[in-house]
């Protein structure tokens, strides 16, 4: 009740550009701008509507902890990260690939050279902007982010993930090689604000930050994430500049919950797709500008829904993912 419903006119979510064309020093054939809206999602038209949200398909370089349902669906692609990335764009219709370096999660990981090679492979195989996720182990962060950042130099990828106590390596890599950063905080609006301030102190410009307020899985705390996204959007439009950033949402544990894992093989794909879809769609309604899923089937379902939500609010090309270079 404390927050007003009506955005202050003129307030906008900051625009973040992802991907770089040849002219800009990269190789992307398509680049995106996310953010820019001055209203709650899908209610505005014209400039106040901002840019259309984007759908990312998550893939990884080490499939050992990846959902067996997805692995069954993508088959041999899982063995070839480049081919998997290419299929995400062409066959599965995603706006972008989110490559997760799950290999770095092994105990004692030290094959840093492989990271650069894989990044180059994926860049070569794709045409759209990329999101790349590094390690989750502070001890190797600096090496991991340096390798990834360097290999993608000039492509303006979205690098993940900065957290409150380990953001320096990511930010340093983004600054050195010209990338944007995912700033993740555990579903708390104040923590999200603080992390943005910390990142600001590293000299990373605000228009290179995408907020990840952390998305719990449908049925496993998703309601907190939904509401924190609504709140962030709400206070951002009230004028809180530290939070006026595009949001990214990925309910990464969707395919590991009981309902999905225990689904019988006949219906497992159906259940997996729905579990991802309901969370990702709701995140869009709450204000996420980038939603990430892992099952290729979810992408198509989200695409249709997004079309129906954007109808008439954006120029055709942009709404359907054709902001060509």
């Amino acid at each position, binding site marked *: 009740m404390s*927050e007003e419903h009506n955005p202050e006119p003129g307030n906008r979510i900051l625009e973040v550009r992802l991907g770089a064309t040849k002219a800009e020093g990269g190789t992307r054939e398509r680049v995106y701008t996310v953010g820019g809206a001055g209203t709650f999602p899908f209610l505005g038209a014209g400039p106040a509507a901002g840019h259309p949200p984007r759908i990312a398909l998550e893939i990884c370089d080490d499939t050992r902890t990846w959902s067996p349902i997805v692995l069954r669906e993508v088959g041999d692609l899982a063995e070839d990260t480049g081919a998997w990335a290419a299929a995400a764009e062409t066959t599965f219709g995603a706006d972008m690939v989110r490559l997760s370096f799950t290999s770095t999660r092994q105990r004692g990981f030290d094959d840093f050279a492989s990271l650069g090679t894989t990044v180059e492979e994926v860049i070569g195989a794709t045409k759209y902007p990329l999101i790349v996720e590094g390690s989750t182990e502070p001890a190797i962060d600096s090496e991991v982010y340096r390798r990834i950042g360097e290999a993608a130099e000039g492509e303006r990828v979205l690098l993940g993930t900065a957290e*409150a106590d380990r953001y320096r390596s990511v930010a340093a890599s983004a600054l050195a090689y010209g990338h944007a950063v995912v700033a993740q905080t*555990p579903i708390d609006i104040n923590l999200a604000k603080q992390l943005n301030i910390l990142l600001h102190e590293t000299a990373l410009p605000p228009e290179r930050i995408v907020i990840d307020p952390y998305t*719990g899985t449908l*049925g496993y705390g998703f309601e907190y994430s939904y509401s924190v996204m609504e709140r962030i959007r709400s206070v951002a439009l009230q004028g809180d500049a530290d939070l006026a950033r595009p949001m990214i949402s990925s309910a990464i544990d969707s395919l590991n*919950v009981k309902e999905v894992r225990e689904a019988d093989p006949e219906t497992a794909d159906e259940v997996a797709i729905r579990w991802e879809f309901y969370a990702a769609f709701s995140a869009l309604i709450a204000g996420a500008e980038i939603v990430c899923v892992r099952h290729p089937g979810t992408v198509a379902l989200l695409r249709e829904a997004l079309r129906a939500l954007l109808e008439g609010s954006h120029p055709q090309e942009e709404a359907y993912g054709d902001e060509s270079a």
Partner: protein
Amino acid sequence: MAMKALDIYKLLPKTNCKKCGFPTCLAFAMKLASGKVDVDLCPDLDEQTRELLGGATRPPIRLVAIGAGERSFTVGEEFVLYRHERTFYHQPGLMMQVADTWPEERIEGVVARVRDETFHRVGEDLSVDGIAFRWESGDADRFGGVVGTVEACASVPEVIIADDPEAQAAALAHCGNFQPLIHAACADTAEAMCDLARKYGCALAVRAGDLEELKRLVGLCRDRGVENLMLDPAPATLRDFLARSVEIRRRAVERTDPDLGYPVVFDTVPLGLPDAATALGILKYAGVIIIDELGPASTMAALTLRQNIYTDPQKPIQVTPGLYPVNAPTGSAPVLMTVNFSLTYFTLLGYLEAAGIPCYLFIVDTEGMSVLTAVAGGKLTETLVADAIKTTELENRVDHRVLIIPGYAAPLSGKIEEETGWEVRVGPGDAAEIGEYLETGWEA
């Protein structure tokens, strides 16, 4: 606009006569301001004041009941646009449609699902709420016949979808006494529909794509004595529904347009996109959602989303600290320590249940902080762990002295060992790896 307690108090008689059941006029004013009581409880108000206070303190959206008996439900009486502002109170009823042109077996199939199918999730049985009959045949008798047949084998709440009063009458002859929702009146049929709604005491939906027209219909129906109304904004796309439903809710809760203070019906079927439309209805204020034959996977996801969205956000984001047995552990089972941040708990629990490995989840009180935040902020300490071992009597519950701590708590492992005397193993930093870790790495 809603009024503050003091402004209300100024308009009360200030005699503290207690006839309203409250000790003072001020106490009554405070209850009124929070929308918890009806102004009519004070008998000593003149007509004008009663009207004024009623308009400012009654729930901004009328409560409407659908159906009779065990599975009947109420919708409306909501106060906010965003659940974080307070909470959402009355979850939407999901009504699965059948058409009177369908073959009998298909209708029976849907009816049986609505009647019998439930999913059990965190202590709640979740199910679709009722059936929506759609008149497609153009034949009123046939419609009545179908409603009659179903009525004989299922007692669930119903929506009767027919824009023709005669078809409505034919259906209501079979089910009118069970308070179905009549859907929907438009300008031409409002009179006849109101007569039916009054005859059976049913709620009535009015349908128009334009909010001014909706308000006019509401006025018409109220003039004909029907108060239990619902609004169908007749969306042609998801975008239409979102825009209209948000605008209706905004004007209702801001009390700028009392004629829009009724719950919304969302007929998703004509839009296609059943999953997106159902989710949108749940998120954005529908009171009744008419759905197509959603498959079991979609139904389960939709009901779970509804359960999430209608959870009270004031509920702390913490779980109660303590020892939680998972998969029926014995004394030799591993003990996994983590924090009482709900998401950490739920995520870890999900993986452990999926892995099927018996173990104890040992939750310590970090006031709802995640592992990373709690370690960084000094909330998670060796003393905290030692105290929790004592209060949970962990030493009596297991016959070993090995504690597995989260990967991100690794910096504390030495200190915890010293303080507790337990052997500490550092588990994975990512919950997804816990199954593999327990299968390969753990021996007490």
